[in-house]
């Protein structure tokens, strides 16, 4: 499905990514984990075709991303940025409808069919009631769901998410994550960058960890996220424990327990 093959990226003389390789299969939810400045965002931009790797390639079903047109690419891959505020107070429905841009002939405006698809996208995330709200006036969590709906309106095979929970409060984070988990169950491949190992443990099928532009480990979250590996990545003590959810799922929780210094 999505294959990252020996991708290196340099900006000027500094190498930001060094020979990164991994695959995301159909319906798989892959988390990218790493400390600040490890190259997560640069990796995403290379995958999205916004940057071109200095070496190596990004492939979707065998096609090189950098060689596809923006339009073709947007039909297979959706991007969910961190929730932000655009300069104009668009209606939520209009924002979601923008997900149809890749399917419009170059001068057209969206038609009935596009509006139906946008409507379905809203319904999938249970936010139909926000349809006529003003995008700039809803809460951060709602905005994030709207951006997911917009990406769904693209009807993509792959979703790329850049820390979709970073600006949300504690409760909203898990609501968004749960939606993300269910989307993967429906067969969409998801690559999600996150800064919280707990999120990866909560919903990911696989995890890759990055540090200083190099891939450290790749595997299922319970293996990759260990007290040792987290200590190595974040330079802090970490405790990991198992717990059972009401629905029977067993998940791990990961808590940082920094040793106080100088007291």
């Amino acid at each position, binding site marked *: 499905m999505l294959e990252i093959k020996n991708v290196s990226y340099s900006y000027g003389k500094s190498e930001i990514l060094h020979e990164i390789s991994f695959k995301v299969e159909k319906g798989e939810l892959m988390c990218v984990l790493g400390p600040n400045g490890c190259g997560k965002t640069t990796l995403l*931009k290379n995958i*999205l*075709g*916004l940057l071109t790797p200095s070496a190596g390639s990004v492939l979707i079903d065998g096609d090189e991303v950098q060689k596809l*047109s*923006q*339009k073709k*690419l*947007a*039909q297979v*891959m*959706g*991007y969910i*940025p961190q929730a932000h*505020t*655009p*300069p*104009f*107070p*668009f*209606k939520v429905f*209009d924002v979601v409808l*923008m*997900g149809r*841009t*890749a*399917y*419009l002939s170059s*001068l*057209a*405006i*969206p038609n009935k069919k596009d509006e139906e698809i946008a409507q379905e996208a809203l319904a999938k995330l249970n936010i139909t009631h926000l349809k006529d709200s*003003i995008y*700039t*006036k809803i809460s951060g969590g709602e905005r994030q769901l709207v951006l997911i709906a*917009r990406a769904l309106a*693209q009807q993509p095979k792959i979703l*790329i998410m850049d820390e979709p929970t970073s600006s949300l409060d504690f409760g909203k984070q898990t609501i968004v994550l749960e939606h993300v988990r269910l989307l993967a169950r429906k067969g969409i491949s998801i690559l999600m960058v996150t800064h919280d190992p707990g999120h990866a443990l909560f919903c990911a099928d696989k995890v890759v960890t990055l540090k200083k532009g190099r891939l450290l480990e790749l595997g299922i979250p319970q293996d990759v996220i260990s007290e040792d590996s987290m200590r190595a990545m974040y330079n802090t003590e970490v405790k990991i424990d198992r717990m059972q959810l009401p629905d029977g799922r067993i998940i791990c929780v990961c808590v940082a327990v920094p040793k106080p210094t100088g007291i």
Partner: protein
Amino acid sequence: MKKFLLILLLIAAFLFSFAIGRYAISLPQLWSILYGHYFGSGAETNLETVVFNIRLPRIFAAMLVGAALSTAGAAYQGMFKNPLVSPDILGASAGAGFGACLAIYYSQSGFVIQLSAFLFGFVAVLLAYLINIKLDYDPTVGLVLSGILISTLFSSGTGALKYFADANDKLPAITFWLMGSLSSVDKGDLFSALIPITLGFIPLFLVRWRLNVLAFGEDEARTLGINTNRLRLIVVLSSTLVTAASVSISGMVGWIGLVIPHLARAIVGPNYRTLLPVTFILGAIYLLLVDDLARCLGSVEVPLGILTSLIGVPFFILIFKNNVRGWK
């Protein structure tokens, strides 16, 4: 519904503008003049001359320039993701001003002044565009920056021309041109501006849905399937055609391109699908009415540019105050 009302308002403003002026013409009189012109004997009356050779071209010019500057302003505000951008941000007005002054300085005819204004307006934006590519900074912020550089360059050129111009006839002509006016617009001016303005309008209207997406920023627009470089080029080229051609017949008429898109946004919201046509109509109405004021306010014409700023600034404060929610 709102659009329908606006079109009615435009027609009303159009008829009203016909009727008022140095020669007051009542509506029945207007009707008989129109009837006489198309179906009558062919002998031109004084009033007929006023209507067809003076008032009509001027009314059309006011509507055209108003619609043009407003539409270009709205398109730029979306493209630059900034509600405080006006259509001359990339140097179109400064370039056109310089071009006109240069032609006036060398005592050229009205047509050459218009042509020179248009060409220099276009060249100014082209230079800004090329400098931005050379700078290789942010695609939109860099463009604004190069626009400011180019504007400054052409404004100092205009300043130099004013300094060297003959203070008895050239300097007043230059100053008057820069203040903006539609008083000397005739049929020929109108038609020669109509072509580039129409050529600019068509692409702007066709890409108007995409302008929405561009307002979300470079990266998002690209991941939503837009070739941003191409779209930006289309918007810049079209807006420049429209702006340079307008300024070439009207001189510097400020604030419309900033104020009217905001007024339109307050009425129909930010979606360019409806925003652009509404901005177009509102711009036409607004400049038509302001130009009526310029014609009728005193025994001597008040320069249009002065009025649009005088009215535009308080108007802007009013709309901005009621409209600012959600912009930050």
